[in-house]
């Protein structure tokens, strides 16, 4: 069950003290308070304000110079903001429900008093500059940005009910699908600050939802009309599954496909390196490096070994499938929407297969 972020509700009691103002505005945005206000430059922001963008972008600068920049189709609620000369009394609590936002913290000396919640993650701030993206399903992507010197702007602690990860290098990123799962292992993105500032990484919600549905439908049709919605996952006892049980195509859970990759389609590359070999499945000695056998949530590659046949399947927004001979060696480079995965089979190199898909 994901954490809930309720944007439609406003508390009856809240302070009417101005805590900041709109410092940048492009296109349309609204501030929901006692009623909906059209955003304007220098519009005063108060606690419990619910800021929403549609076809527009907005930046809010708080009293301590902290800035939150929202891209199109974003929703942010300012739960609490106190800026006091006594650092222990200063506090900022935000709920970020959807869209993409860049957070640049200001003069808060005690950053442990800053918290940001998304539907699936709690973000504790030890740094100064990062972005957060939340899609329509509540899944979160957090990227730590560098400071003006190009080095880490500090640390970001991303926490769920299952655990937490720390981002402490420039452009390190993690994603969270549901609050009950661990955040993914941090990876370093090959992007620039300019790209972050300029990219439009959120699609209109309706369109995105349609795309997701379409993608799932297509994927299901590819596998004998398999419909994951027909399966009651709550009745599945995954704990009883043996660890070495052979992974088959019927085991693919399309809900585990990380569609946040939509948001990364302007990235040059996401290089994921896995050093550990994946050995032995179904009694066949096949070495695979670069992805895990079964459904790897990091690479989003599903690897199925049937006898001597190795199937590599990656279906996010682009779809690719390779059936390889397990007695041969291959280097497979799969580039989809700017995300690069390299998989080596039996040491790689004898045959190199490169597949590039996407709109770039």
């Amino acid at each position: 069950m994901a954490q809930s972020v309720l944007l439609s509700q406003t508390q009856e009691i809240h302070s009417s003290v101005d805590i900041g103002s709109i410092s940048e505005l492009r296109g349309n945005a609204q501030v929901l308070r006692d009623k909906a206000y059209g955003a304007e430059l220098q519009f005063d922001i108060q606690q419990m304000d619910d800021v929403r963008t549609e076809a527009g972008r907005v930046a809010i600068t708080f009293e301590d110079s902290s800035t939150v920049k929202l891209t199109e189709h974003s929703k942010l609620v300012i739960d609490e903001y106190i800026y006091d000369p006594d650092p222990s009394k200063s506090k900022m609590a935000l709920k970020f429900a959807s869209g993409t936002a860049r957070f640049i913290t200001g003069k808060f000396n005690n950053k442990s008093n800053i918290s940001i919640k998304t539907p699936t993650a709690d973000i504790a701030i030890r740094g100064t500059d990062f972005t957060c993206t939340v899609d329509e399903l509540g899944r979160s992507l957090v990227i730590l940005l560098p400071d003006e010197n190009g080095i880490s702007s500090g640390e970001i602690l991303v926490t769920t009910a299952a655990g937490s990860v720390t981002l402490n290098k420039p452009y390190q990123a993690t994603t969270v699908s549901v609050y009950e799962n661990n955040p993914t292992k941090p990876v370093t993105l090959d992007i620039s600050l300019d790209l972050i500032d300029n990219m439009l990484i959120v699609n209109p919600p309706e369109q995105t939802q349609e795309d997701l549905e379409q993608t799932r439908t297509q994927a299901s049709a590819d596998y004998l009309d398999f419909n994951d919605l027909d399966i009651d996952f709550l009745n599945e006892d995954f704990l009883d599954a043996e660890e070495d049980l052979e992974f088959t195509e019927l085991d693919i859970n399309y809900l585990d496909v990380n569609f946040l990759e939509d948001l990364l389609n302007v990235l040059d590359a996401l290089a994921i390196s896995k050093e550990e070999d994946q050995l032995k499945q179904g009694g066949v000695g096949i070495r695979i490096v670069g992805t895990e056998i079964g459904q790897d949530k990091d690479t989003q590659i599903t690897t199925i070994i049937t006898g001597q046949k190795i199937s590599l399947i990656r279906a996010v927004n682009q779809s690719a499938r390779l059936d390889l001979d397990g007695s041969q060696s291959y280097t497979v480079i799969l580039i989809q929407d700017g995300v690069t995965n390299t998989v080596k089979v039996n040491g790689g190199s004898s045959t190199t297969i490169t597949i590039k898909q996407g709109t770039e």
Partner: protein
Amino acid sequence: MRMNKLLILLLVLATSLYAADNEVYIDQSGATSNLDIEQVGGGGNIIGGSDATAGASNMTPLDLDGATMTLDILQKGSTNKFLGDIWADTYTGYFSFIGDSNTFNMSTDETNATGADGSNVNVQVTGNTNTMTLNHAMTALAANLDLDWIVQGGGNSITAAIDVDGATNYMDIDGDDNTVTYDGDGYAGGYFYLDHTGSTRTFNIDQESTSDNDWLKITSVGSNGTVCVTQSDAGNSFVC
């Protein structure tokens, strides 16, 4: 079928601009015509102009114009050349080459003068170190083109460039050291199928239709080689 061939041979003689013993030059116009050419034996035979270059209607004097033609071409021997332009919608072509070191270089409606829709093109190669190049509709759209290749031999180079619009390219290739280069630009999606057996293969496949999904399936049995596949809606080529 036999009667057809007789009629066609007469037609060839009547429309030839120039013909040497081992060279066939043709400039033919008219819809629904049938053309059957066989060059058998020896080497260095040419169908088309020996100085013809690819593209932009500069492949004459082999110039075949007219919709719904049926072409049946057989060249048997070594170092033969087929160099020609075809301007036609819905034509059916059978191009068969038996021997080594042959050159096949053909363009279909590169300048969008007649369209290049609905054709059924079949190329069969038996031999080694042949160089086969087929450009189909470089500025038009080859709607529903059905292009089939059967290649048996090693060291062959097969290059196809198609402005796809639902076109299908099917290749069945057996042999080592073969190189396939495919470029499917265009509008609606294209289909690329390659069934290959052989080692040291090199495949460069580029699918860049802008408005629909491109489909690709490669089955290759063998060891060593390089396979590079690009599918880009933005039409950006990629070098592996």
